[in-house]
């Protein structure tokens, strides 16, 4: 009995720790609950880039991170998935269409010069000077009051630019951005100071246009072209609505289950309900510690794991009732009930864990969230069902004969009616049977 009391206080300590964690740590909510945008970019191979290397992916991630940061939204996440994909998560974004446009662009800045083809056709050819040579870009205004993009070159770039302008005096030099010509001024004199301006041609830039170009140049061009292959966007209203509804559904569901357990299993049902509350607290605390990002699918996984936690209790109680019917004392009946139910609980939970592990490693992010919450739930439920319920049962009922069969939802006339199993010597020792 002393051990049981120590165990009881250990469980209480765990509950207090769980409550402290729940109160002090924030819950990480998925984009489908808080609202936000998730994009998956895939690096594209081109004629010049035959294979996407991990180094390319790293620099792509770096460039994208820079761009995402330029959006000025907190708690963004850029992450590589697989060999050539990047996942970008941007919570609570105001203008997702713009962000999408912003992230997917290669943003290559190129300076080109005219070249005479052999049949007299002129075309623009690269000069070797690109956005990589630019150290900083700024939005400023030109002498005639139009918005322009000012560029400041790196020392190396400034030299290149100086040489190029020297070469092109009296000729046109074009500035291409994203493959589109922005302007093609005629060079009046060599520019040696390492500064240049891009005007928007005759019509000029709108401020937004200039600002976007500046942000993109500063963030750096993408080392490889990338395409958006998946997009999901959830507005904040729908997210809030989903949280509200999941909460309501969860509370109604759990309350009904608790009521059912109480009505059907009586006193053990009450214990199961307490174990269920402890279970929920512990699982929730673990979600916060890991931390698990809660999504709608994750919540579904959690609610399902409640079903499985209750199942463990039901298995144990049904077994204990059987043992009591066969006329055992309370102490041995409870022990035997737990022991006999354990193989079922263990085997069935193991298969759930197997499925969850497979889902976690093969599934998409939605499925991963579901598998993770379910597996945490199943593992905790094994602990609470075995340790918590058993401890409470022993403390509440103690040893001795069953005096009030009603506590278990049994009738006096049921006792001694059930089949009786023979146990081995080892089992007798385990259950505490005294001959």
């Amino acid at each position, binding site marked *: 009995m002393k051990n049981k009391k120590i165990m009881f206080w250990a469980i209480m300590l765990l509950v207090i720790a769980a409550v402290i964690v729940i109160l002090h740590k924030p819950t990480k909510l998925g984009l*489908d609950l808080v609202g936000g945008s998730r994009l998956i970019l*895939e690096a594209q191979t081109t004629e010049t880039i035959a294979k996407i290397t991990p180094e390319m992916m790293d620099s792509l991630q770096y460039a994208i991170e820079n761009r995402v940061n330029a959006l000025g939204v907190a708690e963004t996440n850029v992450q590589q998935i697989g060999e050539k994909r990047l996942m970008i998560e941007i919570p609570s974004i105001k203008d*997702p*269409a713009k962000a*999408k446009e912003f992230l*997917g662009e290669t943003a290559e800045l190129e300076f080109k010069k005219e070249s005479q083809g052999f049949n007299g056709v002129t075309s623009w050819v690269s000069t070797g000077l690109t956005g990589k040579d630019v150290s900083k870009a700024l939005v400023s205004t030109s002498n005639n009051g139009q918005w322009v993009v000012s560029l400041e070159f790196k020392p190396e770039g400034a030299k290149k630019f100086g040489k190029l302008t020297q070469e092109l005096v009296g000729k046109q030099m074009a500035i291409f951005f994203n493959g589109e010509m922005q302007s093609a001024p005629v060079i009046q004199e060599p520019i040696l100071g390492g500064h240049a301006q891009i005007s928007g041609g005759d019509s000029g830039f709108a401020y937004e246009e200039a600002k976007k170009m500046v942000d993109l140049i500063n963030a750096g061009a993408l080392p490889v072209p990338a*395409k958006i*292959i*998946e*997009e*999901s*966007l*959830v*507005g904040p*209203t*729908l997210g809030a*609505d*989903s949280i*509200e*509804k*999941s909460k*309501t*559904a*969860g509370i109604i*569901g*759990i309350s*009904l*289950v608790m009521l*059912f357990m109480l009505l*059907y299993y009586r006193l053990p049902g009450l214990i199961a309900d307490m174990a269920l509350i402890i279970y929920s607290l512990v699982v929730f605390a673990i979600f916060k510690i890991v931390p698990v990002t809660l999504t*709608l699918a994750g919540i*579904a996984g959690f*609610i*399902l794991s*409640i*079903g*499985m936690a*209750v*199942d463990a209790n*039901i*298995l144990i109680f049904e077994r204990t009732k059987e043992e009591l019917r066969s006329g055992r004392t309370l102490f041995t009946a409870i022990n035997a009930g737990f022991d006999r139910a354990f193989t*079922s609980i263990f*085997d*069935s939970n*193991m*298969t*759930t864990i*197997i*499925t969850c592990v*497979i889902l976690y490693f*093969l*599934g*998409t992010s*939605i499925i991963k969230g*579901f598998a993770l919450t379910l597996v945490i739930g199943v593992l905790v439920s094994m602990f609470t069902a075995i340790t918590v319920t058993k401890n409470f049962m022993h403390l509440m009922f103690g040893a001795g004969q069953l005096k009030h069969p009603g506590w278990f939802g049994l009738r006096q006339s049921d006792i001694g*009616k059930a*089949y*009786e*199993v*023979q146990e081995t010597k080892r089992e007798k020792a385990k259950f505490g049977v005294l001959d």
Partner: protein
Amino acid sequence: MNETILHDKKIIDVVKYRWVWFGLSLLLIVPGLVAMAYSVIKYPTHFPVKVGIDFTGGTITQYTVPDNVSNNEMGKIRTNLEKAGIENPVIQVLKSNNAISKANDKKNNIGAIISIKTAFQSNDKQSEQKIATVIKQDYPEAELVQVSSIGPTLGSELFKNSMFALILAFVGIVAYLTIRFQLDYAVIAMLSLAHDALFVLGVFSILGILFDVHIDALFITAVLTVIGFSNHDTIVVFDRIRENCRFLAKKASFPEIVNASVNQTLARSINTSLTTLITLIALYLFGGETTKEFVFAMIVGIAIGTYSSIFFASTLLDWWREKQDKASKSGGVSKPREGAVA
């Protein structure tokens, strides 16, 4: 030894009526199979169920509006979108659980969600704007709440991965059961899981034909969960059979043991399914719109899983043992009738 359970008149004799259960299982599964065959032949995707953009690729744009949208209005939205140059838009209206959202959030009431499915648009912001213009024109209060867009290659990749996960889960379960029980227990457990998965797929195939229900990535999760759960049930019954074989093998025949085991675990099977169904039904009635089909798939699956583990798996195991017995007797080898050894 007291063997009341073996001779109790109140118990359900599952083994005796096994042909009834096998017949019932056929009756449950065949319509679904027919629907799946019909879908494969009839629809351009050639899938047994109607698959959503998760697997085919495409873009779904969803707007919330404060009031419900009638069929007439839906038609109007479609024509307007087509006029605006959107090809083959598919419009769906999801009704909201009004009572709840009204009570909790009067300001941002969600009456219905208009969902517009189009071909995949990656960096094409034009069609996004076109859709927005059309919707705002008729529903100035409409709010863009969700966009999901999946490229066609990613879609087929997702489908392959999901199928691979499904098959791997089956293999994993069978391997585990073979180690913990015996191969024939494992194979029968798997047949029973296939029974459940086919039923759920069949139901969704029929729903696809009748109500244009499409399955998504979450549906695969639902099927996997159902498999896990049904397997729970089957293992509990098999575990009892295994245990009873240890104690009763000399006194009772295998069919008697199966009957006893099913009846001993009956209360547990029903109660567990009931508690899980309670939570699921609460999720279905009061939860968010986006997970409704997912929850529905689980409700269907858990119901059939309970049935299959009580009536289908146990009787199939008994039938199989009986056939093996006959085979070994006619072969002249007398094999002792024995249960599984843990």
